[in-house]
């Protein structure tokens, strides 16, 4: 477990996304004051998930084929994707967004 600060909460619009470059490349999703993190590419095809539609029910819809995922668990909620997105632990402390890439 190694949390590192990767963004400030103000960097991310509500229901917006933020890309954390590096290995692995990761997308942050903001819903209200919560922030979630998943792998960069959709599990169905190689769609960039930072371009997805973020829902206030803590979901994201793939920009290309509209597969829907639960941001909390990564679970695929709707086809054509069936594999879950890899998720990563995130903490928000004093406006700083901290990510553990594992």
């Amino acid at each position, binding site marked *: 477990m190694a949390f590192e600060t990767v963004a400030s909460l103000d960097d991310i619009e509500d229901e917006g996304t933020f890309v954390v470059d590096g290995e692995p490349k990761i997308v942050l999703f903001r819903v209200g004051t919560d922030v979630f993190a998943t792998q960069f590419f959709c599990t169905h*095809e*190689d*769609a960039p998930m930072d*371009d*997805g*539609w973020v829902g206030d029910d803590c979901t994201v819809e793939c*920009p*290309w*084929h*509209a597969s829907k995922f639960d941001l909390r668990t990564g679970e695929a909620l709707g086809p*054509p994707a069936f594999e879950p997105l890899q998720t990563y632990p995130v903490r928000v402390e004093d406006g700083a967004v901290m990510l553990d890439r594992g």
Partner: protein
Amino acid sequence: MALHPAPITLTPGVRSALEEKVASLIDSETGTIGPEIYADPYLHELEQERVFGRCWLLVAHESLIPKAGDFFASRMGEDPVLVVRQKDGSIAVFLNQCRHRGARLCRADLGKTKAFQCTYHGWTYDLGGNLVSISKSDAVGGDRIDKSEWGAIKVAKIHNFYGLIFATWDEDAPSFEDSLGETRWYWEAMFNRPGGTEVIGGVQKWEVPANWKFGAEQFASDIYHFDYTHVASALAMMPEGMEYQEPPPLEGRQFRDRGHGGVATPMVEMSDMQTAMAMGMEVMRYNQSTRDAHAKLVGEQAAKQTQFVHANMFPNMGILPLNQTLRIWQPKGPNAMEVWAWTLVDRDAPEDIKKQCRIKTQMTFASSGVFEQDDAENWTEIQRVLRGTKARKTLFNNMIGANESKDPSGKYPGRTDRAQSEAASREFYSWWRDLMLQPVQGE
């Protein structure tokens, strides 16, 4: 869904026979029109290639697509296109057709998206029309296909003219400004408004069973019909207590060049009264209040001395500045058009003024507008008569006008005739004929 007749594929032999026909149908010197140009399916097909395949065409107003991912499904002639705001703020226009089996990439009229996924097999294109995903790529061997070669077909050029988005398929097309020729002063005056313009209330679309050129030609060249076609509507629209009087002789000039045409009249007390009748007192006062700012952009003569009445930008963009309707005459086979109409307003106008404009435009020139219905009735009437073979061989007289080329007062630039003329109609058809006689790339 009703389908209009199957399109015809032209061959070089048919094209050259059609060229001879076109040359014989339009005589702009004496001013005659062979009405087969309104009804012949072969000429319609050549027109798609050589007029709509070449000219700058209005495809959208930028206010329809303010943010990244916003799109408007438009047309260029009979071809469906998507007009899309990109992430960098620019605008892309491309054929709304999947490269796999040819369905539309997008079936919505307008909206916001991240990408366009064809509903048939799921091929997906980005906001610029580039193919980004062949669905089930691993399973179907999609990786053998070079996606960069199979993007949606892009237009050759795009131009933003004070918020109006134009596109052309022709790489060799002149610049948009050059394409306006000697009419540029008039279009600048109409569209270069303080604070810019926007379209409000959504697009209204309705089909008229008549060839698109009837709308285009009338907006370019015909104030002549008003006192007859619209007399009942004008009487009905008279404010209470006002008497309908014989209209005074129309002052001003009819401008024309490169197929474009329209009428500009002197801004006199009567002009404000006409605005008040058409759009209401509040809109009239608002218009007066913008003239100083407008003059800084386009000069005193254009902003304070001139009332723009009607115009058509070749081939198929019509505007009635007084009634604030902007429209496209979309061809739909030779025997029908679809009118796409918007209410055009100043972006910075107060909300209640915009609302007044919207209501008044609906009453006059819109799908249920009283004047609009008068016009559609005439065009439909002619198209119906043209079912007759004798009727289609009978030349139309297009000789009205004084045939002047310069405004004696020097106030109105470019080639102009007196306001009630068919010089702009002759110009419209002569330009149309010239384009119809010149091959385009890729025939």
